[in-house]
């Protein structure tokens, strides 16, 4: 599949934004972050900016961005519509959570709203994953690891940003640090499992089943229907060389997962200004690493329609 940059930007930034909101929502009311209104304003505000930039980026992918508001109507059947509904609905608890942080002293209500915020963010990210996870013609997406990876990547990048904010005010928590490490390790293992799964997976259909010319021998493409590229060959026929994919996988693994893991450990051990420096580096790495990871998610995906264009498997 042709990597759509706007969609890659959307899923990585909004993923980080929702991830950060999950950590803030769950743990700020439990006193793992400063209660100071300014901290709340900056941290929640930053998450909302990440989510907002992502949502705006996704609209640039559309042929008619001005009609984007229509995209929430079909929530009964469409995961894209459900994602839209979840994204819009989650702004209610998010906004309330931020307001309560900044203006209210009530911790009980804040805690409840915080946890609702976390759940709403989780549902939104899971819906994004389901858009891809339910697309049967693309076996690298129609894979049981896709939704867990979307969730774990969001939780991982959210944790890295959460650490950066808390380290900046000298409130980095060791207990929470270990929870974060578990999340990063889980994300890393899930991604490895996904790559193993798609490498071992087999094409559901073949050129023989695509044409129905079964039992007559091997089906080979003799001539394409058109001499130049068309929408299908550009959008679905995108190919990445195997050697580049292998290199990019290593890059994504090192920058996106291993570097944040090591830097988080270092930060937890060092604390203070060194810990903050490690957190900044971790945030940079996880952002770049996940952009590569998400680019590969598209580039390595093969669409069934390519069977009609000479591919032996898809």
């Amino acid at each position: 599949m042709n990597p759509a940059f706007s969609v890659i930007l959307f899923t990585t930034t909004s993923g980080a934004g929702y991830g950060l909101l999950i950590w803030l929502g769950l743990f700020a009311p439990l006193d793992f972050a400063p209660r100071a209104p300014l901290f709340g304003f900056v941290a929640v505000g930053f998450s909302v900016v990440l989510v907002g930039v992502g949502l705006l980026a996704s609209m640039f992918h559309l042929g008619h961005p001005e009609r984007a508001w229509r995209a929430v109507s079909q929530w009964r059947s469409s995961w894209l519509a459900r994602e839209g509904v979840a994204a819009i609905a989650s702004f209610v608890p998010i906004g309330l959570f931020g307001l309560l942080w900044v203006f209210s002293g009530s911790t009980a209500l804040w805690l409840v709203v915080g946890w609702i915020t976390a759940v709403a963010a989780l549902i939104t990210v899971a819906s994004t994953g389901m858009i891809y996870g339910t697309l049967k013609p693309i076996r690298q997406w129609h894979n049981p690891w896709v939704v867990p990876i979307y969730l774990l990547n969001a939780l991982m990048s959210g944790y890295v940003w959460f650490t950066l904010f808390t380290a900046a005010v000298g409130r980095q928590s060791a207990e929470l640090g270990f929870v974060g490490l578990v999340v990063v390790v889980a994300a890393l293992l899930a991604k490895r499992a996904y790559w193993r799964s798609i490498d071992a997976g087999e094409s559901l259909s073949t050129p023989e089943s695509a044409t129905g010319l079964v039992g007559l021998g091997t089906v080979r493409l003799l001539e394409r229907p058109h001499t130049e590229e068309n929408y299908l060959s550009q959008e679905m026929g995108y190919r990445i060389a195997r050697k580049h994919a292998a290199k990019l996988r290593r890059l994504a693994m090192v920058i996106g997962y291993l570097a944040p893991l090591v830097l988080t450990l270092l930060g937890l051990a060092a604390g203070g200004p060194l810990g903050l420096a490690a957190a900044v580096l971790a945030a940079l790495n996880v952002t770049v690493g996940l952009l590569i990871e998400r680019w590969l998610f598209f580039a390595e995906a093969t669409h069934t329609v390519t069977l009609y264009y000479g591919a032996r498997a898809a």
Partner: protein
Amino acid sequence: MTDLPAAPTPKQLGLVIDLDVCVGCHACAVNCKEWNTGGHPAPLTDVRPYEDDVAGVWLNRIHGFEVGDGAAGRTVHFPKSCLHCADAACVTVCPTGASYKRIEDGIVLVDEDLCIGCKLCSWACPYGAREYDADGGVMKKCTLCIDRIYNDNLPEAERLPACVATCPTSARHFGDFADPDSNVSRLVEERGGYDLMPEQGYRPTNKYLPPRLDTKRFALDDAPAALASAEPAGGFLGWVDRLLSG
């Protein structure tokens, strides 16, 4: 709504495509483009039409395949357009309701005024039936020529999809699969019509008829022994031959 019709539609309109007689002339694709660029999904935009990298929207494409090897090998021309599936994922994934399947006859259509151009429906189609119109910012697809088959202004004999009407070898047939006595149902019954990629689970309406295996084929061994000898003959013709060779 982008929910699929709950019950099987009372009519299931679609095509039967006969791979045995298709000669790959592309007339169906050309007439499709011709009709539809002024019809329901108009325009079928071409971009850079006079450049080397021309691209554009077509709702029907004819692939050419080779199957089998050596003397058993054959060429199969393979027209492909929307199959108007019963389980059309292109409909259910649509977030706006632009993509829908008609309850009365099962035709899958796009309401271009609702389409936001997210392309998700084209990703959801394993057959490559939908093509994005980058100029209009909306998705285009086969309408089964809904503006011909129900068109009272056309003579009854012409109320057929443009591709069917124009096919010079009658490789394309249009009809109602819900009626077991219809032309298309009988063809499927008699000729072993089949679904493309049933394993994908989309339950396409359109059916394909396989190439006939018992067709008398022109193998080299069966060819007449040789062409007539060009050696000089005797008599009058021999005399002419010697004269001209001189």
